[in-house]
């Protein structure tokens, strides 16, 4: 096997350009995933049965249906009801909303380990629910769930490759296209893997940093 670094070197600029889409979708998706995830989690454990039922439905839909199908729905079905999203918006939204279901569950699991006494203390002081979540529960749930959350964010980066089905030339797609012309899949895929690795390494290291910062000694 002759592994050709020339091929990688030659195509790297195009792959890096494509990686910008990957980054954009990932960052947008992460923002939605975290913000919406917290909200869905809070709804899921609400004492109001309708709210928690809706949240359960949300989680079960977005975890149950393959993301590919969700994307196709967002992009190809929504126009039928008059919602014609641009491809990039559909991709960010689908990726973020799907990931939010997972994030919500991670946070819910983490929340269960926060001793109930802490919530009681907040109640006894009259701290409003919003502040309770913002200042007491979410920071601790994020700390406990951080490794799992980083897992989820990294999966999100990788799953952004599905955005190709709505016509976005992100990293995986462009790598495949280059492969189709050069017939050198191994080289191109190794290079693509390296780019994904670097992006995810940054995510992961930030996660570990946050874990360290939030650690209560």
């Amino acid at each position: 096997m002759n592994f050709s670094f020339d091929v990688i070197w030659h195509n790297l600029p195009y792959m890096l350009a494509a990686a910008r889409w990957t980054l954009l979708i990932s960052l947008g998706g992460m923002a939605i995933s975290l913000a919406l995830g917290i909200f869905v989690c809070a709804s899921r454990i609400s004492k109001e049965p309708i709210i928690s039922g809706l949240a359960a439905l949300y989680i079960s839909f977005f975890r149950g249906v393959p993301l590919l199908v969700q994307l196709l729905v967002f992009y190809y079905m929504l126009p039928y009801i008059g919602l014609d999203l641009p491809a990039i918006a559909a991709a960010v939204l689908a990726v973020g909303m799907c990931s939010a279901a997972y994030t919500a569950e991670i946070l819910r699991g983490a929340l269960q380990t926060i001793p109930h006494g802490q919530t009681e203390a907040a109640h006894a002081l009259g701290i409003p629910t919003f502040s309770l979540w913002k200042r007491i529960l979410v920071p601790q749930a994020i700390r406990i769930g951080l490794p799992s959350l980083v897992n989820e964010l990294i999966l999100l980066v990788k799953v952004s490759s599905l955005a190709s089905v709505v016509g976005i030339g992100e990293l995986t797609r462009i790598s495949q296209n280059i492969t189709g012309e050069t017939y050198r899949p191994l080289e191109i895929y190794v290079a693509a893997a390296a780019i994904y690795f670097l992006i995810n390494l940054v995510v992961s290291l930030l996660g570990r940093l946050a874990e360290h910062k939030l650690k209560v000694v």
Partner: protein
Amino acid sequence: QADMLSDIKERGKIVAATEMHYAPFDILKDGEYQGICHDLFTEVAKELGVEVEFLDLPWQSILPGLEAGKFDFVNAPVTITAERMKRYNFTLPIGNATVALAKKAGDDSIAKPEDIAGKAVGSQKGSAQLEQLKAFSESLTTPADVREYVNIDEALADLAAGRIQAVANSAPLMGYAAVQRAGLFEMVMPPFGDPKFFGWVAPGGEDSASLIAEINKIIIKMHEDGRLQAINEKWLGSNPDLPTTMPVVN
């Protein structure tokens, strides 16, 4: 009743989707869309007097996208088959889709198509070429071991890895692969099976009838003034000899 042709002319722009992953028809080289279909369709758009915007989509979302109206036209090489003609409107042939084999360079055990008897041969799932390969294989004394791959890339990768001895796909693609990785792949001549052709696709139904007609007119014009041959020469190094009437498919 909407008419696509007049809509497009009014807009001054046609949006065409393809999978930029089928050399030498659709390729993405150095970050740019190129290939036979690119060159041909650019000419078509010029003749129509409209701008063209090309989209790159994976195969599985091209047909849904066409039906959802996300774009007007598929300028990918789609093998013209009877079943597909029921659902979509095809243009005249723009490329040769007859099946041919590629083997590992220097493999002397395969000199002609019949030599694949008893050997492992890969092809792309769902392609018209796969059907041709199967039929051909049945006609041999010992049938070949036909393996189906989701993408042709993987079949070629397995050929390189040595798990299979040959790959069957359209003659232009096999030829291009042999040129690109000269030391690795080699084409087995001649192509075999029924002659098949690639056409372009517009949504099925009446709306696209006038568009198809107009594009067919342009294709014939390009046959006549030699542009079609020139473009094919440029990418294939030979003239595929395409019919100027709709081929009969069964």
